[in-house]
């Protein structure tokens, strides 16, 4: 007969096991899901919310986990669907037709490591940009400066600022692509 103390301990162990599995699942994949949602176009708050919703969705519908890659792929799909649903409710354009392409692009960038390698590569590539290009991008992404403000800081026209940032991004893309290919 199972006494109360033993059953309570069993409960604690069981709850502990489940918590560990949940934590493990979240730990392994939450960064990837969050970054994926950000790349889709979610702002940070939305990415937080939809990341949570993604994992809750998985927990509601048990799945067989054959491998990290398969789980990650499925998580991205769920996240994508949730994002699209949100966008549709807001009456915004959806990306359903391009989901396949987006996934392919994501895999080229992030592979199986949630994007850490790509970020490392991006950081290295950023360091290779000219000072002016670096400044322009920092003003843009760190300070939320307008194009006019960026142009003013760099003493160039707005059009010039736009071109500068565009060229810089293209260089970053090519540089990161090469680094990821080499790895």
């Amino acid at each position: 007969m199972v006494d109360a103390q033993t059953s309570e301990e069993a409960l604690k162990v069981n709850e502990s096991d489940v918590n560990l599995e949940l934590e493990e699942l979240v730990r392994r994949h939450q960064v990837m899901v969050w970054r994926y949602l950000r790349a889709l176009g979610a702002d940070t708050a939305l990415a937080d919310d939809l990341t949570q919703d993604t994992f809750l969705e998985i927990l509601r519908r048990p799945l067989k986990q054959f491998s990290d890659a398969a789980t990650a792929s499925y998580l991205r799909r769920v996240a994508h669907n949730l994002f699209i649903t949100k966008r549709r409710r807001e009456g915004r354009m959806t990306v359903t037709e391009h989901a396949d392409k987006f996934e392919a692009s994501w895999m080229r960038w992030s592979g199986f490591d949630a994007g850490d390698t790509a970020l490392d590569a991006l950081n290295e590539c950023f360091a290779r940009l000219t000072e002016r290009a670096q400044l322009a991008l920092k003003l843009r992404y760190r300070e939320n400066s307008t194009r006019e403000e960026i142009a003013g800081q760099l003493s160039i026209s707005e059009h010039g600022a736009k071109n500068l940032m565009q060229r810089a991004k293209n260089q970053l893309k090519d540089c990161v692509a090469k680094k990821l290919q080499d790895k």
Partner: protein
Amino acid sequence: MNEDHSDEILEAFLEEMLGGNHPPDLTQRIKTAWMAENLRANAGDEEGVAEVIELPDPATTRNKVLAEVVDTSPLSHEAGSIASGSASISGEQLSPKGATAIGASDQDAIEGRRKPPKRSSNTKFLAAVAASLLVLAAWTVLPDGIFEGTTAAKKDDAAPINTQSPFDSSDTSPKLALDDDDGTDRLDKVSGEVIDIDDLPFPNPDTDVAVHSPEPPKANEEAGLNGSEIVSSLNEQLDALWSDLGVEPAEPLGNAAFAQKVASILQGQNTAATTDLPRNELVAQAVESSEFSRQFSDRTLSAWLRRSDIDLQGKEAQQLRQLLRERVESSKPWNDVVVDLLGGDLSDGTPSAIFVSALSGGGNRRLAERVGAHFLNANFACVRCHDAMSAESADPDSIATQETYWSTVAMLSGINATGSNRSGQRELLDRQQSLLQRGFFAEYELLDHRMKSAQARLPDGSDWSKVSDSEVPRVALANWIASSKRMDESTVNHLWSELVGRPLVPQVVDVESIGIEPRRKMLSMLAEQYRLHGRDIKDLAKWIASSDAFARKPVSLSRDQWLLASEEDLERLQLAELVFALGPSQRNSDSISLANTLAVALKQKQSGSLSDNTTLGQRNQPQNPKRPRPSRITEQTTMPRLDYAIHGERFTPAQKRYVRRVLSADELSWADHVGHIVRLGSPGAGGGRVQQLTDELLKKHSGNEEATLLDLLWAVEATGTL
């Protein structure tokens, strides 16, 4: 690196790297939400389903700022490219890698920037707090079905404690594959795997046995009936059908007329070479001729590739025609043409490359619809968006469902074609090999705007990777189709339509269902015999051309007869033609387009020979034996084209019901309504000209949409492939 979407991804990474928007650690938040959900479910709330969180839209305000900040490159996207504008990161250091690298202080800083999600109800928030306090007690009463493999949880205190985790513990493989697997192991595990999610469309994904599997090879192959027996059986069934419906079949064609019809329909010739032979020999001789193989191949390829990205007069189309002809002439199994065209090597210049390139692209909607219409005997046009709206006359074996459509699209994912073939710059891309690790899925929207994910499956619901040796789903699909009853029936239906004038069984029975069950039985019988006879298209042609349906005289109706005929007379003719008791009033030809046919109806309306009231009113009139046709028929009245004279302006109850159902969908525009009717017919029909003519017809009908769509429906049927 592929240009598609790389820019959006770069934007997000730059915002993280430079803007300090690092991924937060949401573990505790997710755990709390999960516990709260369980507690809510225990308390008797809606089971297992968290309400969709109506998120506030902080992006709205930020977007206004974004409009000024973001550069105008095409890479900018709406909402994501926004730096938080909060705590910045000093220097140009990398972000911490992964959530675990985020220290407590970072996490607080990050989470401090975010607003807590607004819940739709304060109750949920309180429930979350209560859950954290009551977690130990609550864990014993988790609802049934939450955890896979759980035996039915009993909710009394004496029940065994449910120790099942959310993850499948019956799986002997590690619950979470560890990252210390090397790439090979991961790939081995990933290829061909199935993710068992119960919101995938198919209820039992573990089942290896297909619901409707292709016929397995029989140890002692059942011998089919001989040709005479098949024709006799077919004629008996036709007689029974006509008798049941009270239809008197037209007289059979005389010898000369029969020979002429054989030459015309089977060989594409205007005059018959000889009329001396017995009919069955005449048919056999015609079918065995090279003219038959050329005629059949040409018309079939034109139907398959109509309005595709291929020049039907060009060299590539000619190559495909030759392939089809050789298959017919050599009496090889006709169905294998699907493998040639869809499942073969996609290197430049191969038949598969030409065929797939002509139809793929743009999400492969067109390719999936053609596969459905021409190889699976299923009209996929409307089920892209929703399942069939009516269960009347429903075929229980129908695969024309939204699930099947999207799982077919998923089978073709990774295939894409861009550019214009007409300028010689069409490029076909095949990435199916590279997608094997990820799996093949397609996301789609239900009518209630929920999203669903369809896994790549064969049309019978089976997992292609388990029942097929094919490396990629495209090839598996082609091989499955080639040996399926669906392709057999599709071939029979197509050839019947070519020879007799309309399909034996319409793909959309909602609009044409007269005598549908006997017709399905005939289709099934012919398909079975076709399979047993090695899928020789020439045998099939001989049986059909030897049947009573082929040999019926067509309607002959002069203008005076038409003017004097009562409604009942014309309805009788209409019914007789629908069930093949009368030869076709209009021979389908490649030159008869939907637009041209619709112009016939428009012309009739413009001439004003019959009033609009007659279109809708007649069915309600009392059944007088010689009910006169109505009004305003004058000596100047011109008889319309014969098929319009018989079928136009008199519509079956099924047709009216269908049109009314389409019109009842208020959320659809007029163009959508028109599209619904157009897509009942042959894939590739329609276009701007059809829409324009329909709009003109609407004016002629004084805005009566139902009458207009009925005329359009007639035109679709008259082009012969409904």
